[in-house]
């Protein structure tokens, strides 16, 4: 059941009605309803993986309590490592085993030892990377005594399985979401209206920007050997907007839906393509994952303490691991590595926190500098996206090489009967709308909201891509 499907359009109003009109007596009834709805939502993909979700939830719930109750450090450590190893074990088996087995076998073959890997025929349970990280952060926080263990199983289950964030985040923290599910939610008109605006804007990003860009990006990436330089550049730009529209659109819908139930989720995107350097980009892109890695990997590794080499080592580790989190493929690892390289000059000059203020542009020379730095950051981000999108690293290298060597900048007719340049106007309008609203969560709320909503609905209907349906990219992670 996708957020932009008819099934979800039926499911959501039913749950909303039951939540506020039937199960609104206490927070327990509200939570119980949301749990049932969440498990139903998840089972719509594959009911068998529901067992995995429930097991994972129970494991972290139980080990969390045992860690807190542990009388000795040894006992606390035991339950902590049990939870971490089982969680990572699931992730390892379902997501990474085949990758490691294949890579190891290729390595053996390359040194002359014949080996054929034993591969598992398993499908990746949707959302496993997200709910595993929910559970891990919870257990780690209890172990380091940042939070208390949750003794109410329903409340804890809701924190892990809450349907708006279950399959593609944002990756929530117990410190943020659990306190909200511990109290009865009262209906808040303004919050609900904000939620509706965010859902509609999320749909704009998904069906107009992401899915339309995907049509062009796929036609270019899948046939890159016959594309000219101009098409290849556009292909990278289209993919940049595809993945942004897709993932941030999904996050917007998740946040908006959650607001309808009176629950605030962590903001996941903050106009990342307006970043002035790569450090700022990573503070604005998939914020819940970046901050997760910062808090649970970078800082435990020593963070920025211990000299410049430690800083560099830790930075490379979190970027490469972040790449690997996205998928079991060398292309994702390379993408993470490239981002670490981008980050390096900022780290060495200690300027990675230079751009934390609001972006202001007026008619002066400084603003030209700001715009150039935004465009430069976007450009290098697009180069990295080529590795993310390409099937193999060599495909990505050849793609980039062809941009430089082909030098043909003519309009090109693509395999899908469209011209390569057709989307530029639409992307331009989208960028302008986001730029003018970059201080807000989304552009639809505020003054003349109903008019803006009407225009957004008109745009979704007239310009959206529906028949050539594409799944949300991050569902595969």
């Amino acid at each position, binding site marked *: 059941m996708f957020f932009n499907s008819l099934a979800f359009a039926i499911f959501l109003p039913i749950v909303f009605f039951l939540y506020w009109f039937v199960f609104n007596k206490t927070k327990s009834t509200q939570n119980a309803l949301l749990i049932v709805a969440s498990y139903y939502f998840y089972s719509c993909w594959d009911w068998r993986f529901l067992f995995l979700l429930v097991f994972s939830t129970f494991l972290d719930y139980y080990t969390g309590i045992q860690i807190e109750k542990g009388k000795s450090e040894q006992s606390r450590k035991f339950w902590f490592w049990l939870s971490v190893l089982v969680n990572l074990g699931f992730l390892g088996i379902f997501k990474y085993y085949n990758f490691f087995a294949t890579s190891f076998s290729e390595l053996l073959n390359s040194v002359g030892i014949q080996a054929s890997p034993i591969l598992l025929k398993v499908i990746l349970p949707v959302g496993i990377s997200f709910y595993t990280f929910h559970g891990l952060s919870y257990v780690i926080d209890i172990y380091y005594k940042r939070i208390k263990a949750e003794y109410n199983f329903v409340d804890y289950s809701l924190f892990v399985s809450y349907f708006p964030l279950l399959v593609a985040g944002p990756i929530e923290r117990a410190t943020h979401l659990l306190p909200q599910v511990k109290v009865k939610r009262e209906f808040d008109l303004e919050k609900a209206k904000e939620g509706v605006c965010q859902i509609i804007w999320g749909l704009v990003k998904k069906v107009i920007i992401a899915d339309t860009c995907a049509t062009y990006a796929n036609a270019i990436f899948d046939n890159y050997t016959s594309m000219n330089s101009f098409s290849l550049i556009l292909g990278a730009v289209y993919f940049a907007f595809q993945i942004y529209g897709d993932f941030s659109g999904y996050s917007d819908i998740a946040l908006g839906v959650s607001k309808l139930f009176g629950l605030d989720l962590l903001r996941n995107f903050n106009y990342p393509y307006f970043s002035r350097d790569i450090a700022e980009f990573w503070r604005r892109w998939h914020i819940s994952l970046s901050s997760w890695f910062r808090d649970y990997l970078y800082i435990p590794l020593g963070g920025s303490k211990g000299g410049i080499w430690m800083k560099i080592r830790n930075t490379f580790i979190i970027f490469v691991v972040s790449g690997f989190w996205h998928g079991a493929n060398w292309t994702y690892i390379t993408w993470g590595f490239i981002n670490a390289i981008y980050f390096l000059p900022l780290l060495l000059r200690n300027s990675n926190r230079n751009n934390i203020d609001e972006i202001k542009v007026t008619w002066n020379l400084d603003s030209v500098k700001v715009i150039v730095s935004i465009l430069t950051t976007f450009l290098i981000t697009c180069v990295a996206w080529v590795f993310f999108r390409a099937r193999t690293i060599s495909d990505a290298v050849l793609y980039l090489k062809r941009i430089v060597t082909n030098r043909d900048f003519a309009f090109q007719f693509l395999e899908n009967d469209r011209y390569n340049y057709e989307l530029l106007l639409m992307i331009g309008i989208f960028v302008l709308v986001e730029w003018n609203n970059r201080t807000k969560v989304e552009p639809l709320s505020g003054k003349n909201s109903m008019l803006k909503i*009407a225009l957004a*609905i008109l745009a979704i209907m007239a310009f959206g891509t529906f028949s050539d349906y594409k799944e949300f990219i991050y569902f595969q992670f």
Partner: protein
Amino acid sequence: MKRFLIYLVKILFVTIFIAVVLDGLYTAIFMQSKNRGKIEAVINSKAKNYDVVILGSSRANNHFVSQMFEDKGLKTFNYGMSGGHLFEASLMLKLMIERKYEIKNVILEADLNLSNDKESDGVSAKFLPYIHNSEVIKDHFLSQENFNQLYYIPFYRYVKYDSKIGFREIYNITKGESTNALDNQGYYPLAKHKNGNMKNNILNLKPLPHNKYYEEIKSICKANNINFIAVMTPMCENVVGMNYFDKVKKAYPEIHNYENVVIENKYFSSCGHMTDAGAKIFTARILKDFFNK
């Protein structure tokens, strides 16, 4: 909560209003379209006279050279549609009859398409803009599973099939941009394809014993005194499961088997589609067998 529900009702009303307006606008634009494809050309046309009308899929569209019929003095148009099934061929013929076309002969390519009586989404979508303006189209879609959504929900059909009848198509119609679908009296010649797929496996195909739309075309022809000629058209020599054509012959003895009239790979662009040269050999044979006065 009451205020929020009113807010939602307002959004719902706005959505329905936009859907109705867009539906009316798109339909009005499609009603003006004449040079984009064969379906629009028939729908927005008046009575015509034809000696020969050709119907079927791409294996009709690429195989019957209309000009060769014309050279024999037969007014002909090839209404074969790439990707189309018999569902669409039947509807096309019904529309011609509705528009009072006088047709003497219908040649129907009936071979691989006999294996199903389902609609072909990509082609049938192009009839949908006119569903409220033609009883024939409405009745034809009545048996389809999603008829109610397509007919009663404003703008639903344009959203569902946006790649075929959505904004891009509207833009092209408004711009007056034509396609090549109506060139060469509907015949679309193919060139030899360097990477054309010259292997085909039709082992799993089975002709339906009573294809609903084949029978429908046959009975429309009978009711309107149209001479009905059903033919199987050639495939390349590397087809696995060639006995499919024998099964068709067994189930439908009246269909003429021309599958092996052209067999050499050099005459094929891909295994199921002949080149222009192959199509000319095939058409010459059809003319000789059926129109040799």
